[in-house]
């Protein structure tokens, strides 16, 4: 009955209650929205990279291959490190404009910071990198994710670029790129059609789909062609993918490489998600601070609502005390009311967030917002806790009402 009584007290002032709920629902929604994006990115990167067991050697402190530029001589130094079976050279850069459409290739980070949120998100999804591969060496790698993800012939997959493509303007593109940059007929690009990168035409020889936004944002070609296209030095190298002779020695080999070759880091490709995790962890801290502030404001709103509500009900509290309610009973009633506000805010916020995530995930391709049950539960629990804490002072104040307060106020 206490819950029912508290509920009746709330709905008797619908406008005020509604506004208080809205004040806490918005931060809950923000919390779930922002963290579902963050978790989606983390999940995506983790899924993609976890499947890759080779080592990637790149410049120390480079967050990703597109930011890496290895000094000359690194390859020679690597070849002197014992225990390496394959050393495959790569060049990575953000792609120049594709089919004359610029902008998307300028990079997601700038876009995210300087454009409206929807445009920034679009850029994130649409970021495309050119990966130039030493095709001879790459053919020797056991874990060649893209080569293993070429669409079947029935779907027009074609083939992975190989040694026959060395020195030729041939590329393998993802099904997503094929869709985003359609052919003259408006249909997704097909094998045999061309794609213009910057001012140069390339023939599509293969179409792949890994299901990962990161890899599906890559155009793969011969390393020599990539260097010419990207305007880098003929000996420029971004990364090396190396495969140890003994898979069980990967970590030792990584240490060995880092000792032997100064200024580089060697890590399991699967461990990029750890690096990413550190970046995302800092992002999460920032998000938590921002949402925490919003939650605090929501909590202040609840406290204000409850203070107004209790100050209008001094007589009622006095009547309750006259009828044997203890101070604790009054405290429980008011706290229950604020807890209900929190629970409702949490549930509405979570419900709206789930609906939005479902809709957005239907619209986005290659990337999905990740709204875990734990995150939803945390947001509801957080809203409940903040609202309950916010209601404690008004509840304490109400509990100080005595039976005589009822009489004095009702006489006035």
């Amino acid at each position, binding site marked *: 009955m206490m819950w029912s009584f508290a509920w009746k007290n709330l709905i008797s002032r619908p406008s005020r209650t509604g506004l208080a709920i809205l004040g806490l629902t918005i931060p809950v929604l923000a919390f779930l929205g922002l963290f579902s994006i963050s978790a989606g990115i983390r999940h995506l990167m983790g899924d993609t990279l976890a499947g890759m067991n080779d080592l990637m050697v790149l410049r120390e402190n480079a967050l990703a291959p597109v930011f890496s530029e290895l000094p000359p001589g690194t390859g020679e130094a690597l070849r002197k490190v014992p225990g390496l079976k394959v050393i495959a050279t790569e060049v990575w850069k953000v792609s120049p404009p594709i089919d004359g459409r610029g902008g998307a290739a300028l990079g997601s980070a700038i876009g995210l910071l300087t454009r409206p949120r929807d445009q920034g998100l679009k850029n994130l999804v649409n970021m495309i990198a050119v990966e130039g591969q030493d095709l001879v060496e790459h053919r020797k790698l056991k874990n060649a994710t893209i080569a293993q993800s070429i669409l079947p012939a029935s779907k027009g997959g074609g083939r992975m670029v190989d040694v026959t493509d060395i020195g030729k303007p041939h590329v393998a593109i993802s099904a997503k790129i094929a869709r985003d940059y359609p052919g003259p007929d408006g249909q997704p690009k097909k094998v045999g059609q061309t794609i213009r990168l910057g001012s140069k035409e390339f023939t599509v020889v293969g179409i792949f789909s890994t299901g990962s936004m990161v890899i599906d944002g890559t155009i793969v070609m011969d390393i020599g062609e990539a260097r010419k296209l990207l305007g880098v030095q003929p000996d420029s190298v971004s990364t090396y993918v190396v495969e140890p002779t003994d898979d069980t020695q990967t970590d030792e080999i990584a240490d060995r490489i880092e000792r032997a070759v100064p200024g580089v880091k060697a890590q399991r490709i699967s461990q990029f998600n750890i690096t990413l995790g550190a970046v995302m962890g800092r992002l999460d801290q920032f998000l938590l601070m921002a949402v925490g502030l919003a939650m605090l404001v929501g909590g202040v709103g609840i406290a204000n609502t409850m203070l107004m509500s209790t100050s209008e009900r001094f007589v009622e509290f006095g009547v309750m*005390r006259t009828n044997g*309610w203890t101070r604790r*009973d009054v405290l429980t009633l008011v706290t229950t009311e604020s807890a209900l506000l929190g629970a409702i805010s949490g549930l509405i916020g979570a419900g709206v967030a789930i609906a939005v995530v479902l809709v957005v995930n239907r619209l986005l391709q290659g990337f999905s917002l990740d709204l875990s049950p734990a995150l939803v539960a945390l947001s509801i629990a957080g809203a409940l806790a903040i609202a309950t804490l916010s209601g404690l002072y008004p509840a304490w104040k109400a509990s100080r009402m005595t039976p005589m307060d009822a009489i004095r106020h009702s006489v006035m």
Partner: protein
Amino acid sequence: MIEAVDVHKSFLSGDEVVEALRGVTFRVPEGTCTFIVGPSGSGKSTLLYLLAALDLPTSGSIRVAGQDITTIPESERDGFRRNRVGFVYQSYNLINNLTAVENVLLPYIPTGLTPELRSKAADLLKEVGLGNRLNRRPRQMSGGEQQRVAIARALIKDPIVIYADEPTGNLDRAGGDRIVQLLRDRQLAGNGTLVIVTHDRRFITPDDLVLEIEDGRLKGEPSTIPAGHPG
């Protein structure tokens, strides 16, 4: 069964100390209807609040059914108000968000409502003539109906004493008569005690006890006025 001994009550009004009661001593036997009368500001309502354990005297003692309600801890006073006495205000003081039957059940909301209590509340409302108003909110009822709900709220505890502070003050003459009669019939039938503060002496019958207060003191000695006092 109610014994007040040398009860004083003073309080601050601005910078001035007001002595509302100046040594009141009396005894009210069980099963009687007692009226506390006197001019405005004489201290009669203050006395009622002290007898109902709503407030504490500055000095003196008050015993109800053998229990000194001035020395017991707050938690016991809460229990005393919940289980042993009923209180009826002049201005009804029902809770607007609760229905009539829920208002009657108000004392037991924190401790939990049983089907027996719900049934008892409904029966009480029927007894006071509100059988068809069980789920009405206070604002949907007349003043007389609200006061009858307040009486049912006091009665649900099967109290040893019902205290009523000017229960007819906001009602018309006929409505006031019905309320006092209802209190008499329902409370005195079970050998309970009824204490009413009123300005209106027409309710006093020869069998009633009258405590006349003037300027914080009982008027006349001894402090209890015999039955049959003309009022």
